[in-house]
């Protein structure tokens, strides 16, 4: 609105100047006071007339005015300035940015609102805060930055997913990831790759997004903010807005980054060296009554084992990774249309051999005014990613994250002829380096996200808008087992899958002001269809020369096929009202119909109400304006839903049953016409404040979120023909407190030191499990060689609770390990150890602290993230006290009992230890998982405009950055971040740190 006014005034001014050019000519440059950058398009008006000009692309202007005129300088986002000419012919003006106005507007569901008018709980970040961090995906950048938004990685593998929890976990069987909405269209944010995300277990993936394309990210946390997304809003909504074009001459920005990566291992854990292991083994042998120097002994460990040299398998299986990223974007346009386009390439070579991730993205965002009242535009992005993985994640011998701890130091990596040694009995004859060089685990992903909108404003206060989007995701995965690695058998697996989704979103908005009454009413309709199909083939014994299905025997080939589709139809409305910018109320309602649910429960209605009071806009607060410039209280309540279940769960279906040498049908799933949404009932109360002209600002939120009708597999009497049915019966709650505080500690013209932080406390409680005493977590990593999960969900306790064998410690007089039994006695027999509930992997507090120092063109910023009060079970140290004499162990095993009186140590190692105190999921390996991670330290320098102007550049910036340079923690592990469930399962790719340098040039 204001933009339009300025634009037209500027045009008018330009015309009038042409008509009346006389008097003296004043010239000058209009710049941004904060960084000296020119401000193209700034309007220069002669006070008291309609005369004026517009600054050019370099901020230069020239105007004929009376010598005593007063000039007004105006542009968006800056405070107006007036200057008396007083006969001067050169007037350079630095405009002060109007922070209030810049931050004024935030993106919310189906539109934007002034921050002041917002009644719900939202957190937003601008794109600038994201652009420098050297990570692959946007989700990773958000970690620790927003109160109540907890982002956890289960793996350090390039391109891996993140688990995102907005205000805790709300569901056991429906999903827990928030809804991602990009430019108004909900998109697919799960990982579809078959091979590259092992050992992580679900999560959100946003690797397809180029972080630099993002204008802003808003997270809608409570019901008032999110409810208009209805049945998909329960876990919060992440709204991503990509950059729009800026009118003016084409402006280019080029960026390049290069960096290196290493495994995080800040507590310096490593496998034992040859000498250490030999000593450990000799002690274990002697403790078991063997003579390690006797060649006929079962445990013959002479010093000569080390004679041929040893291999550090940790070092040999890892390397320094590298990161590179190149990007160029362009933006420009004229008064009718504008564009933003970008192209980027990212490559991350992993820290393990055979692992890498590459991505290309391209985007075009274009907007055009067709007539004064009709506007159209498109947001189109394409991306291609190519990831190579190993068998990361599971407990496979070829997984280096697993085998680097177990292969013996006196086992060589290479044969004398230079080929890979595969005579590694302790690792089942598998050399992980051979696997990495010969086997293939490759995923290729092709993604198109595109939408087009058409907006018509027949009158100023009324707008009709249709946004129509398509999203296509194609996936091709190929796995190949080379016979040289897999003991003479080869196999090829090929999978193709695609998912295609169409969305149409249509809204009518009425927005007007009548005196002190301001009203916005929005009504809308949306429809979505989605289809997924997968075809996979397993071809054993392919010819290594032609490792494709054509060379396998057709009768051995196996085909896998999967199909799913879903549809959704929605109607919704939002109404906002405010009186004199003091009192705000908002209500929203949405009705969703979904194919996922039962015939009797196809439709569900969700709603919210919220209100806020801007206390500082009251007349009686005028006197405090000088120190308290903003105070707002707000409260909301709403109900939203969670529809995150797989398709067809409501249908009673027959599956095939093989019996009597033929195939018949049998009931496989019971009919469930009442299957419906999980409902989240959330209330939220909050306070936003700003002191000293917003030099200190922040917010406090308190919330309660109750999940009802939680989907659980409920046991039913067998007389119904089934043992269980998927029903809406459970309930759990999340309650919490969130604080966010930002401030400028020092603010002078040259020097600014700002400090900010957030902290959130969430407490979960299981209220009702529909009659079950406890449930197992549905951890997708569980099963197979990985075994079961140590976390239970117990009624009355917090959501996740460890359930572990109860370790007492070491008998100080004998060095044997001891367990607690059911009847409070001590035993050295692990099979008699009792199980106890012992703490939760959920943190008591999470948050982050950021700070930045800027002086002239230099800026130093740092960000750290902390997690406090959670328990973790780390089992990948393999401290087995001599039980398995065939493998190596870690430095963590060296702290063992040596003499009577030793306490707080591991049992004394005994060869072939019959007691076998190693039980991974026991309290022996339960530790405090709190940590504080320095996520990012960046030093940047922007070359002053006095220099860049001379070389006709708009700006040059160089920076160096360290990501995850150090982590403070006390966990006996390489890294304490172990995912939402807080325990190791299998052996996922450990976390990485990066050091990076970059340059950004705009011209």
């Amino acid at each position, binding site marked *: 609105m204001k933009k339009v006014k300025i634009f037209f005034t500027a045009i008018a001014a330009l015309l009038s100047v042409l008509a009346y050019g006389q008097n003296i000519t004043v010239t000058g440059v209009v710049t941004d006071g904060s960084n000296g950058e020119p401000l193209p398009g700034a309007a220069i008006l002669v006070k008291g007339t309609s005369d004026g000009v517009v600054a050019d692309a370099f901020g230069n202007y020239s105007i004929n005015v009376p010598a005593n005129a007063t000039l007004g300088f105006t542009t968006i986002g800056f405070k107006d300035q007036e200057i008396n000419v007083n006969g001067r012919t050169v007037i350079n003006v630095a405009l002060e940015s109007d922070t209030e106005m810049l931050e004024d507007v935030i993106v919310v569901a189906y539109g934007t609102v002034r921050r002041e008018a917002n009644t719900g709980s939202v957190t937003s970040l601008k794109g600038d805060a994201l652009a420098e961090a050297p990570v692959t995906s946007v989700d990773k950048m958000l970690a620790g930055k927003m109160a109540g938004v907890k982002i956890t990685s289960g793996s350090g593998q390039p391109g891996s997913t993140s688990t995102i929890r907005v205000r805790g976990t709300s569901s056991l069987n429906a999903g827990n990831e928030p809804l991602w909405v990009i430019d108004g269209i909900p998109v697919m944010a799960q990982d579809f790759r078959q091979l590259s995300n092992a050992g992580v277990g679900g999560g959100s993936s946003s690797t397809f997004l180029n972080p630099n394309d993002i204008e802003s990210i808003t997270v809608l946390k409570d019901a008032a903010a999110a409810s208009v997304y209805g049945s998909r809003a329960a876990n919060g909504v992440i709204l991503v807005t990509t950059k729009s074009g800026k009118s003016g001459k084409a402006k280019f920005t080029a960026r390049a980054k290069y960096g290196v990566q290493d495994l995080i291992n800040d507590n310096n854990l490593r496998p034992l060296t040859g000498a250490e292991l030999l000593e450990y083994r000799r002690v274990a042998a002697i403790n078991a009554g063997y003579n390690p120097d006797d060649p006929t002994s079962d445990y013959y460990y002479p010093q000569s084992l080390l004679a041929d040299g040893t291999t550090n398998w940790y070092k040999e299986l890892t390397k320094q990774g590298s990161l590179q990223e190149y990007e160029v974007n362009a933006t420009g346009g004229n008064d009718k249309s504008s564009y933003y386009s970008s192209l980027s390439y990212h490559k991350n070579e992993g820290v393990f051999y055979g692992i890498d991730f590459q991505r290309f993205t391209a985007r075009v965002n274009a907007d055009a005014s067709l007539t004064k009242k009709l506007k159209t535009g498109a947001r189109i992005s394409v991306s291609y990613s190519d990831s190579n993985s190993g068998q990361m994640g599971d407990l496979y011998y070829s997984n280096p994250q697993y085998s680097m701890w177990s292969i013996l130091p006196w086992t060589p990596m290479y044969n004398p002829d230079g080929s890979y040694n595969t005579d590694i009995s302790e690792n089942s004859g598998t050399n992980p380096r051979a696997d990495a060089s010969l086997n293939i685990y490759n995923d290729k992903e092709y993604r198109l996200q595109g939408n087009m909108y058409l907006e018509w404003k027949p009158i100023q206060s009324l707008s009709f808008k249709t946004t129509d989007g398509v999203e296509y995701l194609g996936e091709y995965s190929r796995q190949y087992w080379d016979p040289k690695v897999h003991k003479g058998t080869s196999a090829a697996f090929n999978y193709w899958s695609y998912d295609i989704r169409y969305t149409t979103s249509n809204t009518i908005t009425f927005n007007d002001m009548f005196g002190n009454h301001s009203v916005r009413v929005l009504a809308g309709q949306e429809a979505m269809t989605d289809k997924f199909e997968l075809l996979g083939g397993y071809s054993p014994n392919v010819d290594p020369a032609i490792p494709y299905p054509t060379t396998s025997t057709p009768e051995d080939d196996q085909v896998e096929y999967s199909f799913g589709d879903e549809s959704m139809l929605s109607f919704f409305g939002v109404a906002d009202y405010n009186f004199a910018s003091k009192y705000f109320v908002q209500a929203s309602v949405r009705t969703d119909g979904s*194919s996922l649910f039962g015939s009797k429960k196809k439709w569900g209605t969700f709603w919210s109400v919220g209100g806020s009071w801007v206390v500082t806009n009251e007349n009686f607060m005028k006197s405090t304006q000088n120190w308290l410039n903003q105070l707002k209280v707000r409260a909301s309540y709403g109900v939203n839903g969670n529809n995150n279940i797989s398709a067809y769960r409501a249908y009673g279906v027959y599956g095939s*049953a093989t019996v009597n040498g033929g195939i018949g049908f049998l009931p496989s799933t019971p009919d469930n016409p009442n299957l419906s949404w999980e409902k989240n009932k959330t209330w939220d109360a909050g306070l936003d404040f700003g002191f000293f002209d917003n030099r200190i600002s922040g917010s406090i939120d308190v919330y309660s979120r109750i999940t009802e009708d939680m989907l659980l597999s409920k046991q039913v009497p067998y007389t119904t023909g089934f043992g269980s049915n998927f029903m809406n019966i459970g309930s759990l709650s999340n309650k919490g407190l969130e604080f966010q505080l930002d401030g400028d500690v020092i603010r002078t013209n040259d020097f600014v030191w700002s400090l900010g932080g957030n902290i959130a406390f969430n407490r979960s409680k299981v209220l009702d499990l529909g009659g079950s005493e406890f449930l197992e977590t549905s951890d997708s990593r569980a099963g197979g060689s990985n075994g079961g999960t140590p976390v239970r969900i117990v009624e009355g306790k917090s959501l996740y609770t460890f359930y572990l064998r109860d370790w007492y410690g070491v008998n100080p007089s004998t060095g044997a390990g001891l367990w607690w039994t059911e009847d409070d006695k001590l035993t050295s027999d692990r099979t008699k150890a009792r199980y106890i509930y012992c703490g939760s992997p959920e943190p008591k507090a999470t948050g982050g602290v950021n700070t930045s120092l800027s002086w002239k063109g230099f800026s130093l910023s740092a960000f750290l993230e902390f997690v406090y009060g959670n328990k973790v079970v780390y089992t990948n140290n393999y401290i087995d006290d001599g039980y398995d004499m065939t493998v190596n162990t870690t430095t963590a095993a060296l702290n063992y009992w040596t003499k009577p009186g030793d306490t707080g140590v591991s049992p004394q190692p005994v060869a072939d230890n019959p007691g076998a105190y190693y039980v991974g999921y026991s309290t022996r390996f339960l530790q405090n998982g709190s940590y504080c991670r320095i996520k990012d330290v960046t030093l940047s320098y922007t070359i002053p405009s006095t220099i860049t102007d001379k070389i006709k550049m708009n700006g040059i910036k160089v920076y160096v950055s360290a990501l995850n340079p150090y982590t403070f923690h006390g966990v006996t592990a390489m890294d304490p971040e172990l995912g939402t469930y807080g325990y190791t399962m299998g052996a996922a790719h450990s976390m990485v740190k990066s050091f990076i340098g970059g340059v950004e040039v705009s011209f």
Partner: protein
Amino acid sequence: MKKTLAYIFGAIAILSATSCGKDFLERAPKLSLSNAIALADYEGCDKAVHGAYYYISSTGWWGADRVIENEMRSGNGVKSSAVNSNRCTQGYNWNYTDDNTNTAMWAYCYYTASAVNNVIDALDAIEASEQDKNNLKAECLFLRAFAHIENVLQFGQPYTYKKDSPGVPYVFHTESDAKPARNTVEEVYNFAIADLLEAEKIIDPTYVRKSSVDPCSVVNIYTIQALLSRIYLYMGEWQKSADYATKVIESGKYKMWTAEEYPDVWTADKGSGEVIFEVYGKRSNGTYGNWDDISWLTNPEGYGDPQVSDELLGLYEEGDIRLETYRDFEKAPGCHWTTKYAGKGDNAAPDCNNVVIIRLSELYLNRAEAAVHGAQTGSTAVKDINVITSNRGAAPYNSVGNVDIQTERRKELAWEGHYFYDLARWGKSLVRNGGNFALISTNQNVEFPSYKWALPIPKREMNLNENLVQNEGYTTTTE
């Protein structure tokens, strides 16, 4: 212009709202069949009936446990101390609580009932000839009766002892929210008989399902009649039992195995000679138990826990060909195992085997037993018993009494899951003294009557269905 745009936006709104009508939200699964589609035509119902045989072959039912557990409980089996995989102790020790009772049996009964009830309810609406529909219905009725009789044998007291005591719920229509109460033992028997009599009446006497590789694994008219003979016998309805035995015997469909054939018939791929109804063992079966298959369980080189009692072996005279269905094992001299499930050669190890559920010998034994209780059979007890002995290389009887028939029944049908229920209906206590019976602290001998002859109702069922009552003698800790 304005008008045109208004039309365009109006049209978009209307189109997207209406084209997304009712059908828009209907997305049916494509890789499995929704109930309505699966049973919409004859082919679907036919496949659903084929599928209904599924659970019978499970190791939790006739695939293994129904045979082995009963043999272990009856004194025909002992828990091997020579070969031990920690299996089969529960049946041998009679240690049943509501927590470890035979829940699988209970579940499979109702899974089977649900599978056939769905078909029975769907048959009226499908297009097919009346006889085609009746044949399917007869199979369904048989399976429903069979499942419930099997269940009441486990969880109820013998009909001949207390027919008015609680049996099991007899489910005619499977409903997702139903919580049926237990019918009395008598009611269950009567419902089963009603189902079987109707099945006998409507089935085409020449009908045999073609979708099964082994014709003996599916229902025909003689299967129905043979089961009726068994049920009447268990009720003490001697005349009816004898009459139905006669129908099957005189059909000429089945032929006694000769002494020469006898040792080898058990591991054949398909049922032959005497077999009226059996489980077809196959590795491709969805229920295949792998290492828990009956062939591995009864193999001393496999798990081998169920060993044969000396008492049983002592019953056979020298030269009785039935002794050849017991094997020894060099690593455990003096110990014996049954070879009725030695493996048909579908796989090296573990293998699989058919399990006979009803065969012709049983019907001769039924009729002989009925005859000594006064039934008019057209034959005599001696004649019928000698049909057995003459084909087993055993000495013929000159006269028979009730005890002879009981002994001969035990010898002939040993390790086929009969003797435990025979003891129960005869009201005979379990006495396990001497021989190789391992001493156990409780339940070495079990009096009849005792609550122990009926298993406790599974705890989960008690907790989920408040209309069920627990059997006397057992406690249920409800939550």
